[in-house]
């Protein structure tokens, strides 16, 4: 164990437990998370405008014979659920990386404008540049996410950034970008139907073939984020301490931003901007796994899809003939948690 992780672990566990016991607890938690994820996946395939009993779900997944339910399961619900899992994991990981990198408990790719940047870039590419293929506008999503991340950081005061400044800068950039997206949609009414979901993220009507081209980028971003867990652990202790522990600050920062851009850009290109997953999940799982990023990141990757699928299911059943976009549900939950966080912590002094 390096000095950094020993320090982080010591900070994490107020009653110092034996390292072995702690590891067992954490591993159990991760397994519980995987079990929850399996339940969420099954529920997401089963629940909807047409309820499909679990035995029919099984039938559709593994021994499909072309019944109506099989078509719903394989053609609609399975792609939707798969996208939910991939995007949820990406957003959760991105949020955890952002919170650790900026040492800001209120960081979130949605709140800080990264998703909105990707969304605005995609809409621009579709509407003004005539890009039609998904792989074409995926690159625009990356560019938009990266530019927005850098811009919000600069507007928030760079090195002097406090959570308040960053949150305000992110909200303002979000407002400007959504105004721009809405304006383009009104301008180009013919494309309104294809661009509708770029102001609120949704899993509805997503085809499975969108996931495949985005998947390599999502996987690359996730692997990069997991590989950064160790240096980010050191950076959580402050720049000076991290440097003395042998972390490369500049390299870690740049690679973290690359990981965030890959994860958020690809996720937004597939689903539109979904906020607050990256805010909620790290706070929720930290209670179980502590601030050690080597555990935090895998926990986020497992629990975030549970939250996203759960929110999606709630959106499906709340107003029966219609569906509420998953981005709306996560914003509601996330907003409440955000208020609670602000009330509980002395945020300005973090």
């Amino acid at each position, binding site marked *: 164990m390096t000095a950094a992780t020993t320090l982080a672990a010591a900070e994490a566990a107020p009653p110092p437990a034996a390292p072995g016991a702690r590891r067992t607890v954490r591993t159990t938690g991760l397994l519980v998370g995987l079990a929850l994820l399996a339940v969420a996946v099954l529920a997401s395939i089963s629940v909807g405008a047409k309820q499909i009993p679990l035995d029919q779900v099984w039938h559709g997944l593994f021994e499909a014979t072309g019944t109506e339910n099989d078509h719903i399961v394989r053609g609609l619900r399975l792609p939707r659920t798969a996208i939910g899992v991939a995007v949820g994991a990406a957003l959760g990981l991105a949020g955890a990386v952002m919170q650790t990198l900026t040492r800001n408990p*209120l960081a979130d790719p949605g*709140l800080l404008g990264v998703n909105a940047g990707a969304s605005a870039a995609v809409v621009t590419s579709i509407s003004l540049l005539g890009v039609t293929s998904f792989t074409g506008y995926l690159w625009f999503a990356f560019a938009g996410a990266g530019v927005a991340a850098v*811009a919000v950081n*600069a*507007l928030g*005061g760079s090195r002097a950034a*406090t*959570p*308040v*400044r960053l*949150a*305000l*800068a992110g*909200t*303002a*950039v979000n*407002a*400007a*970008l*959504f*105004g*721009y997206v*809405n*304006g383009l949609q*009104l*301008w180009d009414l013919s494309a309104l139907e294809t661009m509708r979901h770029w102001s*609120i993220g949704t899993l509805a009507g997503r085809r499975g073939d969108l996931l495949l081209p985005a998947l390599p980028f999502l996987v690359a971003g996730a692997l990069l984020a997991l590989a950064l867990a160790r240096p980010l652990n050191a950076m959580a202790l402050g720049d000076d301490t991290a440097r003395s522990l042998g972390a490369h600050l500049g390299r870690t920062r740049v690679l973290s931003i690359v990981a965030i851009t890959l994860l958020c850009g690809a996720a937004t290109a597939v689903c539109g901007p979904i*906020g*607050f997953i990256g805010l909620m999940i790290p706070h929720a799982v930290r209670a179980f796994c502590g601030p050690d990023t080597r555990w935090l990141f895998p926990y986020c990757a497992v629990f975030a899809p549970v939250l996203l699928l759960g929110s999606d299911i709630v959106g499906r059943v*709340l*107003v029966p003939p*219609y*569906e*509420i*976009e998953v981005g*709306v*549900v996560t*914003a*509601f939950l*996330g*907003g*409440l948690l*955000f*208020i609670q966080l*602000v*009330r509980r912590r002395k*945020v*300005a002094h973090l």
Partner: protein
Amino acid sequence: MNVPHAPARPKYSAIVVVRSRGGLSLRFRRRALLVCAVLAVLGAALMVFSLGMGAYELGPADVVRTLFGDGPPGADFVVNELRMPRVLDGLLAGFAMGMSGAVFQSLSRNPLGSPDIIGFGSGASAGALVAIIVLEAGTVQTAVGAVAGGLATAFAVYLLAWQRGVHGYRLVLIGIGASAVLSSLTSYLFVRADIGKAAEAATWMIGSLNGRGWGDVRVAALGIVVLVPVVLGLGRRLSMLEMGDEAAAALGVAPERSRVWLLAAGTGLTAMAVAAAGPIPFVALAAPQLARRLTRSAGPNMLPAAWMGAVLVTAADWTAQRISGSAILPVGVVTGVAGGLYLAWLLLLERRSGRL
């Protein structure tokens, strides 16, 4: 009879004091007054241009003649009945937004802390949407809904932010959280509404002056007549609060009580403006900053900010009509894009001067 007081020291020549014999005095900055006057003239000019624009084109001279009652035949109806409510509505709503923006930015001590960013505008929007979609309300009920929603949100945010007093930063952050919750509730209302009303509400949400009538003008005017004197009366306390709670208390201003009154008055102004013109974005954010750059004076600059807001909305609506040619493009789209450019400019400025 007023006697202009000759400045004793050249250092303070920028400030003019007018005293009456009865012991009343008025103290103002010459430059701020000049800025207000220039902006008012600019606003009036833009108004004349807007009134002349449309399917029935009129030159500025014809518009002015029509306003005084002897214009070309038929122009009276077009200018005074069809176009006047829209233009006046934008002007008054912009005025209210600019002033409330100045109040909130000063209270939160942050140039980005305007009511549309920190959730007080979205409270008013949510209230108005409940009125439109659920209660099928007309103009007056929508206004009542917006004011009720705005004040309820402000009250809730204030209570949630209260921990032995309210600090600017906590108010801002809780406002941002509340804004997220409220806008998701708004989306929920959209999904539930039938398609016709959803379309009406959608245009309303972007901030549009299309189809505004005299009822909306009355709402905005009422807000301004009632609340602007209140805000101006509290203005001196606001300048004290900018120096910090301790300093303000030492100078005889009760910080918490003043903040509550200012919040209530500012929220009322925002809500009335939102009720009259929809949540036109970025006016409340940009107007106080632009006004401050023109007057070059510290403090909240409330009146210059208000006039700047009026000019911004009128200019944006004029631009929107110019671009689309048929008055379809909502004014909120123009201010939204302009707001993005303004943010970019703030960014550049911040890089150069190292502060924001």
